[in-house]
């Protein structure tokens, strides 16, 4: 009940931001140079057909009327039709969204895989050689562009030894998994760098705390203390950071999907820009904004589950 009313409250807060973001996107799209009708029909279109299309698309109306129509359609989940694919944008988005979601799940997996153990040991052995090595490594991976890691991994594991597909993620479940490994690693490395530093600092804060000392006085093994008392507590802020990073991963997926030829919404956006397919661009940007808001809300809820002291309010 409590949770439900909290979500409701937050959604109500989100709505005005979303509306303003919508207005912003709408006018941004109108600023794109070139005539969308011309783009749709091509150079050889007659003036009559152009005018017809313009009035069909509402382009001859005032901006205010145009926005009104746009917003009305939006509420009815009508995002217009893609110029390039000649398909409803909503269907396209639905089609591609799953790929991106899976890419992010894979990235989350690898980022945790690469960060928990290094972050923990770095913190436990603060200022020892291990700590310096992991800190340097995380600085290094912060400085490494994802698209380049992706290309290097592709060269090594797809071109040279053929373990993974060079492009795309096939059609079957197994092919999907195989196709998500390298993109996940690519994205995971950069995120892991941030997580390692955060987890390290949290472990340092926690490891000499009273409750860890008390747990020691109970005779628990280092492993039990490490898992239940140090990691359990140190991971709370890290998990929050990670879920905030999902929004950044959405941006990252634009590049990663392009590098690995994954048919997700990021690649859709880039292709939309290339083709000046502005209904698609508009739709993807709106979807991104919506996703970011949902992720932020989810982050707060997850946080309250991980840390019983936090009350949602």
């Amino acid at each position, binding site marked *: 009940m409590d949770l439900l009313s909290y979500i409701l409250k937050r959604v109500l807060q989100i709505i005005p931001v979303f509306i303003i973001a919508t207005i912003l996107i709408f006018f941004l799209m109108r600023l794109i140079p070139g005539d969308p009708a011309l783009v749709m029909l091509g150079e050889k279109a007659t003036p009559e057909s152009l005018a017809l299309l313009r009035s069909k698309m509402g382009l001859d109306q005032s901006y205010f009327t145009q926005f009104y129509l746009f917003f009305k359609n939006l509420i009815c989940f009508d995002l217009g039709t893609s110029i390039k694919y000649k398909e409803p944008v909503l269907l396209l988005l639905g089609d591609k969204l799953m790929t991106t979601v899976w890419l992010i799940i894979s990235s989350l997996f690898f980022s945790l895989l690469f960060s928990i153990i290094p972050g923990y040991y770095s913190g436990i052995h603060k200022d020892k050689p291990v700590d310096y090595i992991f800190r340097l490594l995380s600085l290094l991976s912060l400085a490494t562009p994802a698209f380049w890691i992706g290309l290097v991994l592709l060269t090594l594991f797809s071109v040279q030894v053929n373990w993974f597909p060079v492009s795309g993620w096939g059609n079957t479940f197994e092919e999907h998994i195989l196709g998500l490994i390298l993109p996940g690693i690519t994205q995971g490395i950069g995120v892991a760098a941030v997580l390692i530093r955060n987890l390290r600092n949290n472990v340092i804060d926690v490891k000499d705390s009273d409750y860890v000392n008390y747990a020691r006085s*109970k005779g628990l093994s280092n492993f039990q203390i490490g898992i239940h008392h140090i990691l359990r507590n140190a991971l709370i802020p890290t998990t929050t950071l990670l879920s905030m990073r999902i929004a950044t991963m959405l941006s990252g997926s634009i590049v990663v999907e392009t590098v690995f030829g994954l048919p997700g919404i990021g690649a859709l956006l880039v292709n939309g820009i290339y083709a000046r397919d502005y209904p698609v661009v508009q739709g993807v940007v709106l979807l991104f904004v919506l996703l970011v808001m949902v992720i932020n809300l989810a982050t707060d809820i997850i946080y309250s589950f991980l840390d*019983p002291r936090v009350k949602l309010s």
Partner: protein
Amino acid sequence: MNTAKDTILKVDNLKLQFSSNGQTLNALNGISFSIRRGETFGFVGESGCGKSTTSRAILRLLADNAKITDGTIYYNETDLLKLSEKDLRKIRGKEIGMIFQDPMTALNPVLTIRKQIFEQLRDTKLSSKEKEIVAIEIMNKVGIPLPEKRLNEYIFQYSGGMRQRAMIAITLAGNPKLLIADEPTTALDVTIQDQIIKLLNHVKEDFGVSILLITHDLGVVGRMCDRVAVMYAGYIVEMADTYTLFSAPRHPYTKGLMDALPKLPQEQTRNEEMKPIPGALPSLSDLPQGCPFVSRCQLHQTLCQDQLPTMQEISPGHFARCHYFHKLEGCTGLINCTKG
């Protein structure tokens, strides 16, 4: 004299150093004392004198920069300092349990009390149902109402008085024979302090444990301890049974502690916070060659500057580390103060 069998813990000539910023801090400089079975032994002294360090050294729960340089710590027949980390873990919690000052920081904030009690029962062969029964029983014994419900709560959901009880319950769940309580009442307000003192006295009988009590508060000592050691700058400067110490202090520092107490009889039983004696602890990195108390002592003479006094047995069971203890003869300390 007491035989070894009566003694549960015997610390002998314990020395410990911290290294920090290239300096060596002599935090403990030859601590010797023993605790008898079933007794409550108190440690008093002002902040920074090494009370907590002593208690942590017993279970070797020390910071990385601490080093025990000398001494033995016998728990029954075993020298804890010779045990491997693994064997020591069998002592921790199950033979010697600890209670910390502030339950809000000493208990894991994100684990339920149940989970933290169950951790103590990890090596028993009990099913989780049986563990639950044990846990509820302990919660009842330490006076936590509605234990079935409260087991599932987190420490922050407990009220002030219940928090310390929860920690006591968790520690007792390990069934220790010796309880080390490091300022268990300092963080509490007066009425709750009172309840916890009563509870600890009750627990001592009920569970048959011995207690090593660390405190600032002479009032708590009076109400709980059978014997007391007074610490100063990493030394024990005086040790006696509580009555003797209170009625006939023989170290000027002990005397100073008592003089600093409020004198009104009605105030006397409660809130006996120590008022600091003029001057400060000597620096642990640069202890004087003679008596550590020399700079603050009214009795001091040249001998005190040159030579560290030894622990002398003044009367059976009453020890003091002072060259001129006899000058305090006839001084009747706290008992006199309160009565006169």
